[in-house]
């Protein structure tokens, strides 16, 4: 569906995307993770041609977005990072005009719009002006907009930013349903949990490069296996001295606590029996640990 080869984008002499190779296959839910400024949105904008690549190759449905963007865009649904809703129009007018743009048959428009608005709990706002919606409502409306054309490929650039937990679950449900019925999905998010539950494959980008790639489980196994114990921040010096010289521990201190990752659960529980230190919480390591490790926010023991 999407194939990028040595794809680069420079803004002046700054390289936002610095030679990435990646492939998104039909039917996948593909995650694109990375810190702020990693180049995720730049990549996404290149897929439908609002950012022109500097070099390399990019194909969407086999088309080059620089020359055949229209063919691509007829089959695409996009949640843009900034909502870009038409502020001069009402909710319903926004959706109607958008249906016209993407060529939804006139007879189907009303039902399609109403169904999706109802699903995202926006039915009661159909005649409201965009300015009068809350931030999360606008976000939901952008999601509705992206689905109006029943796209083959759905691109979601931080779709759940600003959504309350209940609505977030609602949106996840819809994304899952679409994934199950064969829609290909590209998702960027800063919620690692979201990527973990939705994506079957993902890449972590950093400084315009792909830092790691694989299924969430594989990434965790490869880059941050084991368990994480969270200890009281006051015990940090004690913990540091205990693990000094032992490299099976990954150690991160944070204002909220000391994060200690170990290969086995017993390495963590032994802190209680051997040193009288009780972790506030013990959990299996997750994608967030991988993210922090790969994007350079984690401090290693010897650092």
């Amino acid at each position, binding site marked *: 569906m999407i194939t990028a080869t040595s794809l680069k984008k420079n*803004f002046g002499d700054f390289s936002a995307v610095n030679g990435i190779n990646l492939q998104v296959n039909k039917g996948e839910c593909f995650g694109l993770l990375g810190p702020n400024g990693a180049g995720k949105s730049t990549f996404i*904008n290149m897929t*439908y*041609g*609002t*950012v*022109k690549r500097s070099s390399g190759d990019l194909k969407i449905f086999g088309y080059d977005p620089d020359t055949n*963007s*229209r063919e691509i*865009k*007829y089959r*695409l649904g*996009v949640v*843009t990072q*900034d*909502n*870009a*809703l*038409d*502020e*001069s*129009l009402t909710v319903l*007018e926004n959706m109607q*005009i*958008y249906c*016209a*743009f*993407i*060529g939804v048959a006139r007879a189907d428009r009303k039902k399609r719009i109403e169904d999706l608005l109802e699903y995202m709990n926006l039915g009661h706002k159909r005649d409201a002006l965009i300015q009068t919606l809350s931030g999360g409502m606008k976000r939901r409306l952008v999601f509705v*907009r992206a689905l109006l054309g029943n796209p083959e490929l759905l691109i979601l650039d931080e779709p759940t930013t600003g959504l309350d937990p209940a609505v977030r679950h609602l949106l996840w449900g819809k994304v899952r349903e679409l994934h199950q019925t064969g829609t290909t999905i590209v998702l960027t998010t800063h919620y690692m949990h979201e990527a973990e539950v939705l994506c079957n494959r993902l890449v972590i980008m950093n400084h315009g490069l792909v830092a790691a790639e694989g299924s969430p489980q594989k990434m965790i196994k490869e880059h941050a296996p084991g368990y994480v114990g969270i200890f009281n921040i006051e015990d940090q010096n004690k913990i540091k001295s205990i693990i000094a010289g032992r490299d099976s521990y990954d150690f991160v201190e944070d204002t909220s606590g000391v994060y200690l990752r170990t290969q086995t659960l017993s390495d963590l529980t032994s802190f209680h029996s051997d040193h009288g230190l009780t972790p506030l919480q013990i959990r299996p390591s997750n994608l967030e640990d991988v993210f922090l490790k790969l994007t350079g926010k984690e401090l290693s023991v010897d650092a």
Partner: protein
Amino acid sequence: MLNSLKLCMHITHRNWIVYKKDLIANISPTVADPALVLVSLGLGLGSFITNVEGMTYMQFLAPGLTVATALFTSFFESSYGFYVRMTFENVYKAMLTTPIGVKEVVMGEMIWVGLKGAVMAVGVAIVLALFGLMSNPWLIPTLASVGFLVALPCGALGLLSSALVNNMNQFQTVYSFLIAPLYFLSGIFFPISQMATPVRIVAEFFPLIHGVRLAQALFWQRGIGEAFLYSGTILVVQSIILCALAYHFIKKKLIN
């Protein structure tokens, strides 16, 4: 091609939906302004001028006012209006994720200002005809073509400035150094032949002067055929060149 045109019409339609929400406020200045000029200059100043090219000053002034309306409505729409849509409202950002491309955006906006220019020119002509300033009121509908042909190049100038200014204040500069001279030196207020030769030569390149000639031909029923052949052609050529330029620069703004 047909598909592209359809997409353009959707943009035009979008602007119409927004425009009609505030119809009275949107239309009244376009009618009020020429009426004010007509009263102050035509009746006021006109009482000192008894004969311009064999007619009263009111009669002389009338055709140009329809054209000036087309100038202002198209320029303001495609400068301030378009700039706000592009920069603050991000209207085109979402559009460009749909099959619409920059070409359709520019063409859609041009069709919109063209139609607006046409309707406004006709509207003003009706008012002027009621004052008895049009020798043959049956020609009123033909002023739509004049309004359209003037609005295209002037609208393209507006789009071009939208692409080139760094902020809204700079439209003021464009207005002072481009639009105002266009307005005052295109033979609306006095016969172009009275101006110094260099000014006359420069003015010949202004789109407005050709619009004024067309309107005068229709209002006074003089040389309509020649006017359309000569000035009409020039307006079409100017529209094509300016639209192409506008497209080139707008594309740089919308595509990174």
